[in-house]
């Protein structure tokens, strides 16, 4: 049996925005015409999550109040998007893509490396609350598979080794460089350019 949200021991009694976040929320609400404030629900839930790391029941109720929206409507939105965390996650929330392209490119090794390095399983949080691990569906970056998503960044072209390195950096409190971990430029061919190798600007036919 799963616990109902109101019975979950980790739910705080109340939620309040920081002053800056409240101002930001009101700025967002103003973007929408009178009577359409509910459209602001997603960006405001995002502010909540950036502030607390996750979205609590108390926060959803407050957002409903702010937007003149039945709480149920907020729950529907928040539960629909897996990107909203409805229970606390680690400060560094490691989300490994295990969808088919990533899997073909070795995401199993990446997951394994994460588990070993962090000492936790999928859906768990380390005892110090610093790391949590999750499995996610396609992140839309298959061209650089396998991919891990942390905070606002994607770590791409991973294998077991680079995954461990990346996590170690986080453990030291650093934020490793995002993007391809093999050093290639965005999604350019792995071994360097295969075409348009001539240096200098290329003029395309028709360009004036």
């Amino acid at each position, binding site marked *: *049996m*799963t616990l*109902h*949200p*109101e019975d979950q021991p980790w739910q705080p009694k109340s939620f309040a925005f920081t002053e800056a976040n409240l101002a930001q929320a009101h700025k967002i609400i103003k973007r929408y015409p009178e009577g359409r404030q509910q459209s602001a629900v997603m960006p405001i839930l995002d502010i909540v999550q950036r502030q607390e790391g996750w979205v609590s*029941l108390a926060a959803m109720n407050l957002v409903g109040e702010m937007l003149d929206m*039945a*709480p*149920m*409507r907020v*729950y*529907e939105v928040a*539960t*629909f998007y897996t990107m909203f965390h409805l229970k606390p996650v680690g400060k560094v929330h490691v989300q490994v893509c295990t969808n088919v392209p990533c899997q073909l490119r070795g995401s199993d090794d990446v997951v394994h490396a994460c588990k070993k390095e962090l000492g936790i399983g999928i859906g768990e949080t380390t005892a110090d609350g610093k790391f949590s691990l999750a499995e996610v569906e396609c992140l839309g970056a298959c061209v650089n598979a396998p991919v891990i998503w942390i905070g606002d960044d994607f770590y791409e072209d991973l294998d077991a080794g680079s995954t461990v390195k990346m996590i170690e950096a986080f453990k030291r409190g650093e934020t490793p460089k995002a993007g391809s971990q093999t050093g290639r430029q965005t999604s350019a061919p792995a071994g360097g350019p295969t075409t348009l190798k001539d240096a200098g600007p290329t003029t395309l036919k028709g360009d004036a």
Partner: protein
Amino acid sequence: MPVKLTIDGQEVEVEAGSTILQTADYMGIEIPRFCYHERLAIAGNCRMCLVEVEKSPKPVASCAMPVAEGMVVKTDTPMVKKAREGVLEFLLINHPLDCPICDQGGECDLQDETVAYGRGKSRFEENKRAVEDKDFGPNVKGTMTRCIHCTRCIRFITDVAGVPELGATGRGEHMEVGTYVEKALSSELSGNIVDLCPVGALTSRPYAFTARSWELKKTESVDVLDALGSAIRVDTRSNQVMRILPAINDDINEEWLGDKSRNSYDGLLRQRLDRPYVRNKKGKLEAASWGDALKAVAAKLTKAGGSKIAAIAGDLADAEAMVALKDLFTALGSANIDCRQDGAKIGGPRGSYIFNSGIAGIEEADALLLIGTNPRVEAPVLNARIRKRYLKGGFKVGAVGPAANLTYKHENFGDEAKILEAIASGKHDFAKVLKDAKRPMLIIGQGAVARADGDVILGLARKIAEATGMVTDGWNGFNMLHQAAARVGGLDLGFVPGKGGHDVAGILDGAEKGEIEVVYLLGADEIDMNRLGKAFVIYQGHHGDAGAHRADVVLPGAAYTEKGGTYVNTEGRVQVTRLAVFPPGEAKEDWKILRALAEVAGHAPGYDTIEQVRARLAQVNPVFGRLDELSPAAWEAFGAEGKVSGDAFAATIANYYMTDPISRASTTMAECTAAFVNTAAERTGTHG
């Protein structure tokens, strides 16, 4: 603008904006559906209604597709057949095959449509998903593993009931319909989602496992637990009411029913008076024969006679019984009769005490003033009609009365009666809103007239109606909302004090002082029994409630499901209930008891059959001759001049779930009271 199209080779012309499914319904071509419901918003999510449309490469959801000129639709092609089979196969992937233990069995859309359109076999071998059951409170049972996510219940609770507590959380395979935070559905209309649910996900909690739909005898009747006279269907097995469902009446309840009217039926079995009782010398009620009981009553009545006897008719009394009682009292020379237990100062011209615009008329109004009423608890189905009108837009609602959560936006101007003076004289802002409206309307509740200055307030309401143009040719927006099913009928047949007679307050005073010696209560339980003094009290009715406890003689009558009784609803519409089961034990239809009593008392009336009683009713007031119709009432002067008191309007119903002897005897209603009323009081801190 009409549009021409073809469905299954038949040409048809319909209004633009209709959908393919509506057109097919109109032509009598069956298209199966789950999520579409004619009284709810269109969702288009179940895909059961797929049809083939020429030039469209894929099947089209007919419930969400508007018709277009020259469209060629086919509902009987292999493509449609395959589409239906596919949809059903997918729905059944996660639907349990538990029909034998499911209350919906026998009246389940999924069952029926699977038989008619399914493949007959599933290719799915994996495990089905399971969803935790939800606790929706005393009225609705949620077996959510059976849910097919049609969202009918969500749309009803959100749009019609206006209490948005239901929703769909999660997505894909994890989608669940529920309240997320566990709670009972607090809408007074919650039971309707049981009817709407096309599968057995939402079933009736009180009815759970008590009967199978095919065992039931179905009797169409009229509800009397509020004053709307909603159409109902009483389902019975042997001599017991197993459940009560709404029937369709577009003029009154569309197809909705309040939870009290729906789920009080277990009260029909409890606390019943099933034989006559007479209080013996030791002061104990003792079972008696009909003959002895009637003789005892007749002796008391004839001995005292005249101004020393009085009769009060209760809120569930039928018109036949009231006219028989009135005739008897007239014969005995008494004018002390009254049907207004709450002391409402009403009873003038008919137009002053009925809902003149009709309930359906609410949809034509464009401004509304509520006076001393909370329609959400006095008549939840009517409240839903107001909300329906509100959702269409261009509808301002103002209220003078206790603040209430009405499920639509409205402005409460306060609860003091003198605000009405300001509106009547045009000084109040809302007077202009009403004046500018094309079809302004007011609804005045019993809370406004059941007080000492009730007639002055009634007069003010009339002034407001006249000053703001509520009464014009073809429109009468002066509406009174009643709470008692018997009230309008009682007023129509003049069950009010005659010349020199006393009203309820006078009767109670007289009884206290010993001036009135015999009081006849026809199902009257809402008066203060302590004030009856030493009077000899006769209680005729169906439940052992307050009246029977005080009585010296108890005459067991029939409840509304056990007789063909005439009731006039708040609109002034005359309707007749039907006998669905027989009264218990020795209990008898009420008019027959009074007919027999009159004979024992030596005043046999001129009627022996129900037809003759009804003829007598029509003779007293011709409206009784016009069944199921609205009879427009003439607009005449009514109400009194004078000063209103400073008293605030008070709420008249503290607990929607228990307002009469039947609902007070119901355990389901007791559970509702515990779940909704008492907890609400605790929340606001007014409790204890």
